[in-house]
């Protein structure tokens, strides 16, 4: 069975807490806060004002430039404020606040339950519809999907890779999507194949989800989806990383930054994103909701919700029953998720799950000296030397950190996870990476000015 070539770890997947919970449609929030930045790139501009009436699915934030994404209202009602509010990490971001009145949709959206498979649009039309619908990568990176599907001149896509790996422990939203929204996903894959002009798509799924693998294969056969195959992958974190997945599926490695997946002919897209693409292209439905897992060992109940964006995170935690005492609430899973410090923050596009860890589970051990065991080097899936990168960042040796390729780091956390001395390796590497990237951009800007 295939997997990516170097590094990686085997954390317990902890999926048993929520994997058998079918997707439930979450009640609509009475008030939704919708952030104008839920993607990588430029923040969108609000196009509504206080007092405006909006419908579900109506555009409320306009994308600025190519690398940006539209934002739509997830509910219908009246805009009560356009102002800065804290996001999950406590940073103040521009948000549109809508008070809900009923649930009236924009009438161009097809809300009938029928599955619509046939698509005769041209690639340009497909990409335009995806752009209008404000679709971003739902695996967590929130990269605008229309940018990914716009193949640069001179490059050619050879294969579409659908990311159904979900290697992050605890999370099961992609798993439930693959089981319950299979037809939508597969039609979405067909549309992506059409958009980038390839005949082959591979859905990569880790072998800890044998029923998803079997079910997708069955539907592919039953409904005759041509050119789409499911590839079981050996369970290993971080297989869901874009570069790791491409290497696992094709055996090809994407060169270090700034090379993109298309340089090896791959276009990668998450399973939930494929569903969103189906809805946008076939049903004219913008991205206003997603499947989100609420999970943790100490919760009263765990769930996989289909929830509208803008729903306060606190509501989701409330329904699951947060335990008392010290807890860490995560937007995402325990390896790459971000700690939520403000639970009034709204649900955003990139949130595939909310994980609750007890203080004990998330406690960091006492930091000791590096014993040069080399476990971080062995675990690094990018072939870096985390113990050196972390030390260089600590000493503020930015030039040397750059020489040691710190910008290659994908922040998967394998190094910190394996360190027997509990060194906060990734904390320092992240600082080093950000500083080096700032330096590189400053140099590029200075060079441009000279020219």
């Amino acid at each position, binding site marked *: 069975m295939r997997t990516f070539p170097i590094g990686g770890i085997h954390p317990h997947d902890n999926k048993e807490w929520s994997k058998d919970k079918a997707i439930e449609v979450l009640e609509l929030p009475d008030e939704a806060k919708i952030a104008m930045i839920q993607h990588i790139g430029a923040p969108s501009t609000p196009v509504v004002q206080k007092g405006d009436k909006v419908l579900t699915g109506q555009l409320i934030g306009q994308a600025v430039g190519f690398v940006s994404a539209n934002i739509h209202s997830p509910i219908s009602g009246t805009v009560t404020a356009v102002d800065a509010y804290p996001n999950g990490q406590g940073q103040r971001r521009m948000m549109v606040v809508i008070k809900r009145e009923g649930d009236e949709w924009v009438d161009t959206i097809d809300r009938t339950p029928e599955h619509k498979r046939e698509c005769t649009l041209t690639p340009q039309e497909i990409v335009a519809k995806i752009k209008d619908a404000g679709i971003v990568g739902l695996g967590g990176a929130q990269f605008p999907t229309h940018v990914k599907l716009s193949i640069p001149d001179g490059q050619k896509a050879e294969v579409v890779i659908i990311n159904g790996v979900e290697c992050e422990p605890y999370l099961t939203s992609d798993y439930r999507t693959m089981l319950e929204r299979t037809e939508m996903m597969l039609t979405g894959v067909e549309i992506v194949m059409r958009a980038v002009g390839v005949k082959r798509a591979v859905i990569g799924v880790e072998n800890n989800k044998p029923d998803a693998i079997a079910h997708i294969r069955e539907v592919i056969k039953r409904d005759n989806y041509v050119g789409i195959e499911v590839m079981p992958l050996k369970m290993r974190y971080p297989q869901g990383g874009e570069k790791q997945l491409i290497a696992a599926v094709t*055996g090809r*490695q994407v*060169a270090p930054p700034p090379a993109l997946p298309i340089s090896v002919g791959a276009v990668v897209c998450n399973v939930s994103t494929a569903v969103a693409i189906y809805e946008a292209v076939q049903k004219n439905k913008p991205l206003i909701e997603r499947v989100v897992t609420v999970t943790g060992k100490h919760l009263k109940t765990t769930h996989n919700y289909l929830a509208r964006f803008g729903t306060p995170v606190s509501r989701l935690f409330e329904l699951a029953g947060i335990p008392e005492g010290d807890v860490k609430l995560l937007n995402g899973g325990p390896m790459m998720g971000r700690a939520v410090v403000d639970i009034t923050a709204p649900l955003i596009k990139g949130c595939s799950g909310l994980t609750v860890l007890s203080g004990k589970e998330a406690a960091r051990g006492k930091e000791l000296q590096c014993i040069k065991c080399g476990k971080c080097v062995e675990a690094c899936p990018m072939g870096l030397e985390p113990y050196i990168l972390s030390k260089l960042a600590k000493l503020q040796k930015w030039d040397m950190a750059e020489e040691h390729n710190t910008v290659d780091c994908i922040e998967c956390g394998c190094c910190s996870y394996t360190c027997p001395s509990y060194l906060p390796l990734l904390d320092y590497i992240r600082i080093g990476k950000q500083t080096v990237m700032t330096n590189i951009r400053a140099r590029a800007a200075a060079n441009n000015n000279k020219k």
Partner: protein
Amino acid sequence: MATRLFAAPSPHIHGGETTRRIMLDVILALMPALAVSAYVMGWRVLFITAVAVAGCVVFEYLISRFLLKRGSTIGDLSAIVTGLLLAFNLPVGIPWWIVLIGALIAIGVGKMTFGGLGCNPFNPALTGRIFLLIAYPVQMTDWTTHAPDALSGSTMLAEVKGSTYDAAGNIVLGNMNLTNVNFMDMFSGYMNGSMGEIAALALILGGLYLLWRRVISWHIPVAVLGTMAIFAVCVALSIGGGELCYQLPLFHILAGGALLGAIFMATDYSTSPMTHKGMLIYGVGIGLITMIIRLWGAYPEGMSFAIFIMNAATPLINKYCRPKRFGTGQTAKK
């Protein structure tokens, strides 16, 4: 009780591996060899081992608390490992006060001078042993006192040391005829030598445990022992071949400190390379130097010196054997 949120950057979970657990694994892995040694050589083995371990722990505690003025580091159990390995490298008849001096040198000079665990460039236990070998050569090579009856006063490596060149330039083995060697005795521990190096089977079991626990990888032990075996086969071929072709490599792997060194001493984290490629180079270097000293050097055994020399080369190996950067392999398109 209310719910209290707390925050920190990812990753939010840890694999559970700790320095203490790793050291505990090494200690456990050394226990079979200690047991065999005590069985073959008597209770004094346990006494000397206890002196070495106690010496290392106490010296580390005193140095870190009163000289370096920082918290005690003995909780990580690495001082116990150093003590055990030091004891394993000593003859059983050695006076206890020499063991204490060895412990002081191992911990004081070999380890704490450089900042403690993970910072030392040379294996602390070997630092102690080599110091003692030079300072107390008589006591350090007195194998008679508690030897099993079947064996005389010198180690087998010292016996083959008499090897000379014949007229054609070939090596001739000295007093020993390898066909008389009982390899099963060597395997189970009935041979002369330092306390911890005699029990080949027990050492291999310990090594397998460390491999299973992923404390060490196979690269260093296999490179060291493989190089020694290949070297020995070449020597055997050059002096006539025949049965020597398997006897000589087997002899060199089982005799002296080859297994103890390859499995437990050379794999010391802070003094060995970080990458698998580096580990192989390092291991081959140790194997070569050991065989050169064993065959042509002034000492009968070369393992300690070989590891010591390659310890010195480790920073250089680390510099030139870096891991392969993702995306720069041949499979990637430009």
